[in-house]
């Protein structure tokens, strides 16, 4: 019985972490192009989705290398 007082909160925590991870990935747009992502795994030069920050960084590197 006492073990349950530990196990139940642990189970719930793990569930909540999973749920949070799902929400995070949903907000990150990981479910927007499932067909495309299935093919993307085959590219050599696949890069992660650019966020606003990385887009700016990419812009800056391009400016400097020009």
């Amino acid at each position, binding site marked *: *019985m006492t073990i*349950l007082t530990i196990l*139940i909160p642990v*189970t*719930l925590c793990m*569930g*909540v972490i*999973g*749920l949070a991870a*799902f*929400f995070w990935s*949903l907000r990150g747009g990981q*479910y*927007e*192009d*499932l*067909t*495309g992502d*299935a*093919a*993307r795994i*085959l*590219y050599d*030069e696949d890069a992660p*989705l*650019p966020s*606003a920050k990385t*887009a*700016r960084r*990419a*812009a800056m590197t*391009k400016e400097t290398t*020009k």
Partner: protein
Amino acid sequence: MGAGNVSDIGIDMRATEGKSLRLATGPLDRAQTRASVRAIADGLGLCVLSLPGIRCGGCVATIERALNARDDVMSARVNLTLRQASVTLAGPDADPVPIIEALAELGYAATPAEIAGAGDDDTDGASKGLLRAMAVAGFGAMNIMLLSVGVWSGAEGQTRETFHLVSALIAVPVVAYAGQPFFRSALSGLRHGRLNMDVPIALAVVLALALSLFETARGGAHVFFDAAVTLLFFLLIGRYLDHLMRDRARSAVTGLARLSPRGAMVRQNDGTFAYASLDAMAPGAILSIAPNERVPVDVRIVSGDTDLDRSLVTGEAMPVPAGPDDTLEAGTLNLTGVIEAEALRSADESFLAQMMRMQAGAESGRGSYVRIADRAARLYAPVVHIMALATFIGWVLVTGGDWQTSAFVAISVLIITCPCALGLAVPVAHVVAAGRLMRMGVLMKDGSALERMSEIDRAVFDKTGTLTTGTPMIGSIPDDPAMRSGAKALAQRSIHPAARAIARRLPDASAQIVDEVEVPGFGIQGVVDGRRARLGRAEWVAEIANVADGAASPAFAFEGGSSVSFDLSETLRDGAGDAVAALKGAGIPVAMLSGDMAERAARVGADIGIADIRHVATPADKIDALDALRSAGHRALMVGDGLNDAAALAAAHVSMAPASASDAGRTAADFIFLRDNLDAVAATWQVARDTARVVRQNFALAIAYNCIAIPLAVAGHVTPLIAALAMSGSSILVIGNALRLNRAGTASRAEPTRLAAGAEIAA
């Protein structure tokens, strides 16, 4: 839809989806493309390009590699599902035209896609909201089930109470969050005095939660937390699938949308031409319209000669010449010459606007269609409520006032009859059917289209662009090789559809040609192998050669020589005959509505076996014809593509359009087929019939389940364990039955197998 949607009508794909890619090179195209760049954060510009040509991961990699290597592109990302590329440019004023040209060199036609408006964002948010609610409900259902299994397998006393308490702690927030879609819909239903399917759901969940909390507080043996949350989870799956399917099909349809004339090049006071949007255009403005551009508003030509493609307006397939003082309707395609024209009416009074208003009017007739699930709910919800209430009263009377037990039994009736299987029965079948249609190259707007399709008893086809491809074809060709190569040489220099058809049909190598001039409205002239030659209208060719009286156009002749006439006919769309035969074979009479002339309509009708032909039909005639069918009690399928069909497509019980249709046609149609083959019509009808059958079976399963479950519940034998088992069991049964649609489809469609096989490979 009102004036705001005038701009939805635009360049159709016929102009662009030929063998060669057409670049956006006109001044109007450039101006519009530049106007499509939207400012985003950090001073960058975002341009969303629609790339209908991408098919696979390879295309995605090629495009991204090419675009990301460019200096003027900050980043590019291709979405294969939507067939779109989001390109980040250096600034909101950056010019995306070079990028479109680069893509064309790679072999992908690209046009700026409509940037999603506020309405689209809303539905996108709704589908994400449903997904979140589903995830939360799933989380709750899993955890509560774990605890419930503990209780079912014999947890007693203190342990059971703790488990119940933990379940309550999970269930209350989960129901509060995940139940919102149902609560909101139930409330709005009640406010309008209707009982929809969400009312029993909301009531059952809330009551079950309340009673379970009460039972937990007093240490009772049975609580319904698990049932309440699992019910929400299953129903949210159904709701999300329904939403997902509609979203998919709609985004695929908008992905197809081509650049529409949202503006025109208008003459300024200083005589130069500048881009102006449609709303800013006043009557009297002088517009310049280049070849391959659509006329944006109703105009009268001031100067310049040209040929026009009026097929979208009138359904007439062959190009017609036009000159000063001719009046053109908005939506006409200018083919050969640059014209200057005076705007006669403002954009919201133009022919296009009238068409859109007619379409909106016609659509309201179909708006009264009630989806099967809603019809079922209308019958089902009152029955469930009355039964639960009767059970409660009965138990109170029998037990002599034990309201707690009575409430427990009444709630278990509500839960077990809750339309869990019913909620899944329709969306699951529709999603599976939509997947099968998608593999066949048919996009569907929403599930009710499938339901309406299965009910048709009449089919009406438009001619130009639907039964025929809209591209002219040459019948006989002259025997003289010199004439053939001369004609081909001239024909190759023109973008006139008739000239293209001639060039395609003549196999010979083309002759040397110099000094060629295209005279818009007449034809093309040049010096071929040292002799002057003309290809064009017979009267015009007669000026330099002997042309027999009454010779057909287009004609070709060398100076002083005799002429040959090319016999232009329309090309039947692949599978047109098969589609008509399949529908007739299934006992559905087929008719043809054409805006074209009697003779041409009759010829096509004879070729594919349609006897019931109405020709020279105006858009209003077409609506009248469909309204007549409707008032005679018929449910008609309309297949059409043009602007002149858009209103009729909306007026019909259900409608289909090819992907080559005008934007207006695609907006109005319920189904859009992407491949050129008209077989899609009969195949879609078959899928709709199969789906309707599976939906009926699913309803039968759900009813059969209720027939067993309700007596048990009323008798008070339903413990939470039985409720959970029954609910999951019936849902799984319904899903399994719907999945048969995938398999049944390929096996039962013996006749159009050829199509299915080809389509599946292509997909």
